[in-house]
């Protein structure tokens, strides 16, 4: 479970996240949508404990991140949007290292690591240095590392970037099965098709504020006029679709 109360993040006079209240219960896959610069990544990085909120509170699996950060982070797996990892470790060593950060080791971890790498077709690459991995392979390795310690909550920033269609499909199945087992996932994405087919509920964030939150049906009703998520998104965020492309190209 993830609970955000009055969550705010300011950079000087600029408010990146403005007084957000959200609650994502166990067993839910929650989508976070919004235009570029709306505050999605900032919110997710605050939940991951990387950024300090200016105000408000974050609870992960019922534990206050501010008062007991280590216990709260023990329940968390984070997948960032840019796959930066130690270039000079092998894939297997990286998974072992991440498990170690959560105090886990031994045969179970080794077995889990092998299974996760096999799931993403990385088993043959396990003993090779990360520096020889492609962007997509690094992303798959980071996704595997978020699952290695079996967290209660997973926070994902743009999971599909760089993944091939097969890996994208595997990831969707993995996420669905994971929440079916009672865990929580919160993910931001720009792929509206992914959000529409995968998420139980969706929040649309704009200028740091939650513009709308609910199931696809709720959002459709709010956007008055129905249509797919793309239309709903554009209506709710007030963006002009492909704004006057001809004009721009002629400029």
């Amino acid at each position, binding site marked *: 479970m993830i609970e955000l109360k009055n969550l705010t993040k300011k950079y000087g006079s600029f408010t990146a996240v403005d007084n957000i209240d959200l609650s994502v219960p166990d067993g839910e896959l929650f989508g976070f949508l919004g235009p570029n610069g709306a505050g999605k990544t900032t919110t997710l990085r605050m939940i991951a404990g*990387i950024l300090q909120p200016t105000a408000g509170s974050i609870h992960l699996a019922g534990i206050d991140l501010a008062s007991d950060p280590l*216990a709260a*982070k023990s329940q*968390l797996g984070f997948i960032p949007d840019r796959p930066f990892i130690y270039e000079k470790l*092998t894939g297997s060593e990286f998974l072992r290292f991440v*498990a170690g950060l959560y105090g886990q080791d031994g045969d179970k971890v080794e077995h889990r690591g092998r299974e996760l790498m096999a799931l993403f077709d990385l088993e043959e690459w396990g003993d090779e*240095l990360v520096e*020889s991995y492609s962007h997509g392979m690094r992303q798959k390795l980071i996704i595997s*590392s978020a699952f290695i310690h079996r967290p209660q909550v997973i926070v994902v920033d743009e999971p599909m970037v760089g993944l091939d269609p097969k890996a994208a499909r595997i990831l969707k199945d993995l996420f669905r099965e994971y929440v079916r087992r009672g865990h929580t996932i919160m993910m931001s994405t720009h792929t509206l098709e992914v959000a529409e087919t995968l998420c139980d509920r969706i929040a649309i964030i704009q200028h740091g504020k939650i513009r709308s939150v609910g199931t696809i049906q709720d959002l459709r009703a709010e956007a008055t006029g129905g249509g797919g998520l793309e239309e709903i998104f554009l209506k709710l965020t007030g963006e002009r679709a492909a704004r006057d492309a001809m004009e721009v190209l002629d400029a």
Partner: protein
Amino acid sequence: MTSELAIPAEVLPPREVAPSPGLFHVLSPKFLAAKARPLGKTDNKSGRLVLFALIGAVFWVFVFGLLYRLLKYFRGIPEIGALLAAKLLGLMFISLFGILILSNVVTALSSFFLAKDLDLLVAAPVDWLRLYGAKLLETTAHSSWMVVLVATPVLTAYGVIYEGGILYPLVAAGAIIPFLIIPAAIGSAVTLMLVNIFPARRTRDILSVIAILAAAGIVLIFRLVRPERLARPEGFRSLVEFISLLRTPTSPWIPSEWAAQSIMTWLRKDPEILSFYLLWSTAAFVVVLGAMLHRWLYARGFSKSQESGERWVRQGSLGRLVAKVLTPWGVMRRELVLKEMRLFFRDTTQWSQLILLTVLVVVYVFNIKFLPLRGEGVTFFLANVIPFVNLILAGFVLASIAARFIFPGISLEGRTLWLLRSSPLEMRQLLWSKFWVGTIPLLALALILVFATDVLLQVSDFMMLVSIFTITMMTFAIAGLALGFGALFPKFNTENAAQIPTSFGGLVLMMASVVLIGLVIVMEARPVYQYVGARYMKIEGDPVEMWLGFGGATLICLAATFVPIKIAVQRMKELER
């Protein structure tokens, strides 16, 4: 309608070649970045500025003061004084030239082949000559700023003592500028050829090893020249022989000699235009040659440098052993230490520096062995004071090693901090792991170094004890400072780990280490000297002063160990990456 995006042919402009952007346009992002963040992202810019200015001023005053006294002494010696000053300048310039060549070779690999802006620049219609010019300037600036920083107080001291006059700064600048350009052009050309010869990214590894071996070679050659002979004219058969050695140029075919000549002849009021001519014409020649090579080889080399890195690694038995030993300390600590070790030994740019380190240590012990500390004129006091000088020098060696290996620790975590910050790992734990991983080998080296040299010096048991105690405390303090400054002045976005120690933070660390070593030695020297003296005279020494001296030095070392790490932990907690 937006669905009709097909653009009719007549709307398209006629095909034309875009004008190539100018050199300064290509370089403008660097200027803008430097202007926007001179001291890194910080809330406390003025505080840091004051710190920079203060430490920088202390360093400059120190170097200037040292040179001033030395040159004043030289000036007082008739006949050979000016020759000694010229020789000293020549030796200094040849060392700087060697450092510049190496530094440019390594920097050129980053700026010409691995920098992040290259994808954009190579894909844009940027003229090859402008790209070369921009990258050469960038390489020169990155490799040379520290040399300029060190040379300024040195050359100022020369100018003041030998009354260089109003035009002296211009003359010095006229000699220094081509002196910096020549190694930059040579270094860039060497890198360009290496990238074309060796496969892909292995070049970086090969380059590191070559650069380090070359540096080791320079140190050894410098040692073989035996510059200390100049300080002992009595060692020569006659004064004529000594003067003739002084008159011989250190290296007549190397630009360092021309630069030294340009400056010294001006200071001797006998300006010589030939040296300037040689400097500037050589600079122009190597830049033109470099540009031609660049045109011929760059596209192929750049393409090669984009190929992927090393793939396979072997699981070392050392790793398995360390894993076993560390198991009782918990999974998290074990994995952190193992990770540090793997990253270090698999990064050629890091471990290859051990070669240089070994050479430095060998040369150091060799120097001590050949010190004329026996026979006539060597008093009991001298033999016991020398160990303090030994401690100071060993301290400098340790500080430079800490700057190479411990200081970059935090910067190298930059891109992966997201992982550590989002995991239940305490920053305190991370920093202390880095501290111990760096300090244990450093301490082992420090103890071996001091023990070996003290045995060679045949010091008393008391002095041996003092030396071992002091170097142990200083090692902890220097490691603490290195880690602390590493967190205070991180370089998270660097493309080459070898460049981190030469950043401003690295310089501040070296200066702080010098201050620390000085303080510790000053606190200990007087009571030890008095104690040794009293024992020699067979009278009672003053134990209170001894306790105060050692107590003070210990307190300073403990503070320098714990305070920087405490500050670093706080800084890491506040860091938002």
